[in-house]
């Protein structure tokens, strides 16, 4: 979700509706509106509908649903004398430009629109960067997009002196944020007048020279980036929304000097896509009655797209501001939105079949019942854990943890339970707990090299406990499942020598149990004796499911 802030009264006056109706319409356009304060609305826009990131885009969509205007919003497009020559710019090879005359847009809102496009389709300016200039301050008709040395001087936006590009990169906020995206061999991309005056150094900053202000009505817009489609779409979004405010779009001649792009003569491209959709596809996908919803084209036009009706199909002409429409399924969604999701009656969907539990769930449930029967209370802890608490050093480390407390994935429940017990030493004794859950262990036979392993782990902490206190319940839990275990002495870093056994079934280890070593207890700041057992549930399932 992308959040924008708009002036409440300006927007409601422009639309001529009240706040409640606007909230309702926005809800059905995937958006949420709330009052920020007396004068401002906060609107959350879904990331696919970038056309709604300005009040003009919202206005265009709302007019459609109110049926004041239907079909594509058509804007006046004129030729201009401006030309953009695109040279070889290695870090971001694509650029397009456009002119808009007589746009009637609030300066703050325009800057917000630009920034929101930067953070979404622009991928924080990495993919696309936008420069918006005051057309009247531009002196040459030919503008170039080319690499210039980082020693080149200009006055950056809101600056009061000439600076080299190097200085901009190392001394300004913008330079530090975006400088590293574009500089290559001490060369920087630039939008530059044919007389050598810099208009902007994408994606970092514009020049002070072409600065826009409240009075600016005529705009020159450059868009540069690493993806031609994204650059073209961004420019289309910008000019159509400015045109919706009353502006006229001016075409700029485009010349790719290196012929990287050869089929484009003018920009903005104002891309129109035609999608032909079978009407039955719409009816069947949504599950709606074709007799009740005869006029599919009407719905398309309410969504501000042009539509032509044929016997079996409709032809939708997707306007440049609807870059989210990829193919016919997207048309289906727009029809559903026009009808209103809450007007689609949920159906009673039934297919006659029976559900099945995963076997591991069934086994887990039985073990939990038996564990309660053996008087252990169930606890439930996090899967993520601090790596220093793990005994077995074969564990998964998180490369980008947000906290040292949770920088690894547990590979046993024993440290998890010790951690739990250390926090409960002042509880009423005895403390008898168990947890059943997944740990993650290495396994070369899986496609990720790891797999989840289900464990159930028991612990008793009391003023006095011994081996048999844990062995007895484990023995009878297992034998209740038809498993007669054997116990064989083993070595362990965790348990006291001579008081630790592997639990065996069919000659395979299905668990370990014993008395915890004093040094381990102290490591966890525990001052009372503990006996524990860990059973390998996944292993048990393998052995008992024939």
């Amino acid at each position, binding site marked *: 979700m992308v959040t924008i802030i708009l002036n409440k009264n300006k927007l409601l006056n422009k639309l001529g509706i009240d706040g409640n109706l606007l909230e309702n319409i926005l809800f059905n356009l995937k958006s949420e509106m709330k009052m920020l304060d007396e004068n401002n609305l906060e609107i959350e826009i879904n990331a696919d509908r970038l056309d709604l990131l300005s009040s003009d885009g919202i206005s265009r969509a709302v007019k459609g649903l109110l049926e004041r205007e239907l079909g594509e919003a058509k804007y006046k497009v004129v030729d201009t004398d401006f030309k953009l020559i695109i040279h070889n710019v290695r870090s971001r090879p694509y650029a397009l430009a456009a002119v808009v005359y007589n746009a009637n847009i609030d300066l703050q809102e325009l800057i917000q629109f630009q920034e929101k496009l930067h953070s979404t389709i622009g991928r924080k300016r990495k*993919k696309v960067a936008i420069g918006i200039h005051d057309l009247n301050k531009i002196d040459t008709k030919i503008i170039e997009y080319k690499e210039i040395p980082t020693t080149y001087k200009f006055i950056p936006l809101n600056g009061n002196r000439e600076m080299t590009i190097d200085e901009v990169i190392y001394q300004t906020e913008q330079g530090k944020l975006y400088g590293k995206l574009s500089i290559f061999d001490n060369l920087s991309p630039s939008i530059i007048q044919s007389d050598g005056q810099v208009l902007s150094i994408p994606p970092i900053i514009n020049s002070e020279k072409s600065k826009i202000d409240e009075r600016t009505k005529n705009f020159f817009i450059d868009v540069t980036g690493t993806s031609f489609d994204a650059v073209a779409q961004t420019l289309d979004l910008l000019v159509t929304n400015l045109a919706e405010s009353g502006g006229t779009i001016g075409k700029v001649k485009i010349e790719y000097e290196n012929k990287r792009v050869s089929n484009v003569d003018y920009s903005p491209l104002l891309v129109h896509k035609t999608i032909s959709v079978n009407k039955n596809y719409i009816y*069947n996908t949504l599950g709606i009655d074709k007799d009740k919803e005869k006029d599919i084209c009407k719905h398309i036009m309410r969504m501000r797209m042009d539509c032509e009706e044929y016997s079996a199909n409709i032809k939708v002409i997707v306007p440049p501001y609807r870059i989210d429409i990829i193919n016919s399924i997207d048309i289906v969604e727009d029809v559903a939105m026009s009808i209103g999701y809450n007007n689609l009656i949920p159906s009673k*969907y039934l297919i006659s079949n029976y559900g099945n539990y995963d076997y591991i769930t069934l086994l887990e449930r039985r073990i939990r019942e038996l564990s309660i029967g053996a008087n252990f209370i*169930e606890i439930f802890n996090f899967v993520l854990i601090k790596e220093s608490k793990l005994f077995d050093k074969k564990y998964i480390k998180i490369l980008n943890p947000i906290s040292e407390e949770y920088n690894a994935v547990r590979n046993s429940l024993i440290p998890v339970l010790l951690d739990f017990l250390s926090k*409960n030493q002042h509880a009423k004794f005895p403390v008898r707990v168990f947890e059943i859950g997944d740990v993650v262990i290495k396994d070369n036979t899986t496609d990720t090299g790891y797999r989840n392993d289900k464990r159930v782990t028991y612990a008793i902490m009391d003023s006095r406990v011994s081996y048999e206190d844990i062995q007895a319940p484990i023995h009878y839990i297992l034998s209740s499942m038809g498993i007669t275990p054997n116990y064989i002495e083993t070595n362990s870093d965790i348990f006291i020598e001579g008081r630790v056994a592997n639990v065996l079934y069919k000659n395979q280890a299905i668990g370990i149990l014993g008395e915890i070593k004093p040094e381990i207890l102290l490591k966890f700041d525990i001052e009372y004796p503990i006996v524990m057992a860990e059973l390998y549930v996944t292993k048990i399932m393998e052995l008992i499911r024939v």
Partner: protein
Amino acid sequence: MLSENEIKILDFLKIVKRSNSEEIANKTGLSISSVLSLINLLAEKGYVRVEKKVEEYYALTEEGKKRKNEGLPEDILINKLNGKEEEINNVKTMLGEDFNIAISWAKKKGLIDIKKGKIIPKVSSHVSEEYYALFNLENANKNLIEVLERRGLVEKREKIIILVELLKEPEEITPTISNITHEILVSGEWKRYKFKKYNVAAFPPFFPISKKHYFKEFLEKVKDIMINLGFTEVNTGYVEMEFYNFDILFQPQDHPAREIHDSFSIEGIGKIDNQDLLNNVKKMHESSWKYEWKQEIALRLMLRSQSTATTARVLASKPNPPLKVFTVGKVFRPDAIDATHLIEFHQLDGLIIDDNFTFRDLLGVLREIFYRLGIREIKFKPAYFPFTEPSVEVYGYLEKLGWVEMCGAGLLRPEILNAVGIKSRAGAWGIGLERLAMSFLNINDIRLLYSNNIEYIREMKVNLW
């Protein structure tokens, strides 16, 4: 109800009618202190009347005890002289420190004469009357007691005597006991006893009852709901390839949700043998999103950030429709941990693949699931997810919070179904379970779902319905 010992005392009193505490102690073999408390109990119950009396008596002093053992000095003098005269100085040596007492009392009693430095006995042997009295102070002649008192051999003392008088006899006296034992059961001896009364209104001592974990039980309830709706459970591992978490779900590789701070990365790469699947997914990305799709990014490992990764694996296995599966699984996302956020939480993901499945069917299934989860009022909001179209968010109404977003859902995009080779339509959804559990369990801090305080877990009430 009378105790065994109370009955002993009453049995004795039935014979004598009146007695005192000392006598009762002697006759019943109980200690004097038990007798005192028992007769007070019996008095409270109305069986006896108790009277306290102070009695004087004489007891031997330390010297008295000595004289009782050795004899009185004057008697010793007479017996030693044995009827013969003796020089005073010799007698002095013979009697030591008792000399003066012996001479003075022997003279007073007229037993000797003293002439010319010699002591002349008048009798050859003598035992004084007071000496006999030392052995029987209670019955001794009053004059003798006075003499003994004057000589410092006895002293006057006081003692408290509790006089007890039987008022009524118990109608039927049955002894009581505390515990039934095997022995008294088999011997039939139990019939002689009644059971001692307890204070049954008192609260019991601590008892550590074991129970299933409340949140785990909620998750199991969710599974039951899905099974009852005819879904089959599937599970996959926490460690996942980006391919199943993102790529197969049409999420472009430079999508903001794939940025490093939105999921946990793990070292290493996975492997996918199905080359057709890889090619199809590559094609799907490159033709729709216009960028160069990189297999090495898709194979990177992560902790799954959505349980849709599990249903994605089901899709990739190209199952035969109709199919209804679900998973209840844990997912991991970096976030600040607070009362409403955790870095690991559960999702319920569902997938239906069916030839004629419609968007309205999907809405119907979602309504049914939420109804069974106890959310009776829901509304649908158009939404955007890369892998579904049409997409919908389900808002549920909660008493305390109002309308809350609870679920993301939609029909799977045809691009995805084409890539995995499924010809039918498919619907999918993901529901976050922690918030629902909090509402269901009436908990207002998400961290309490994973409380590490045993007392909190012990005290947690069980949801009955």
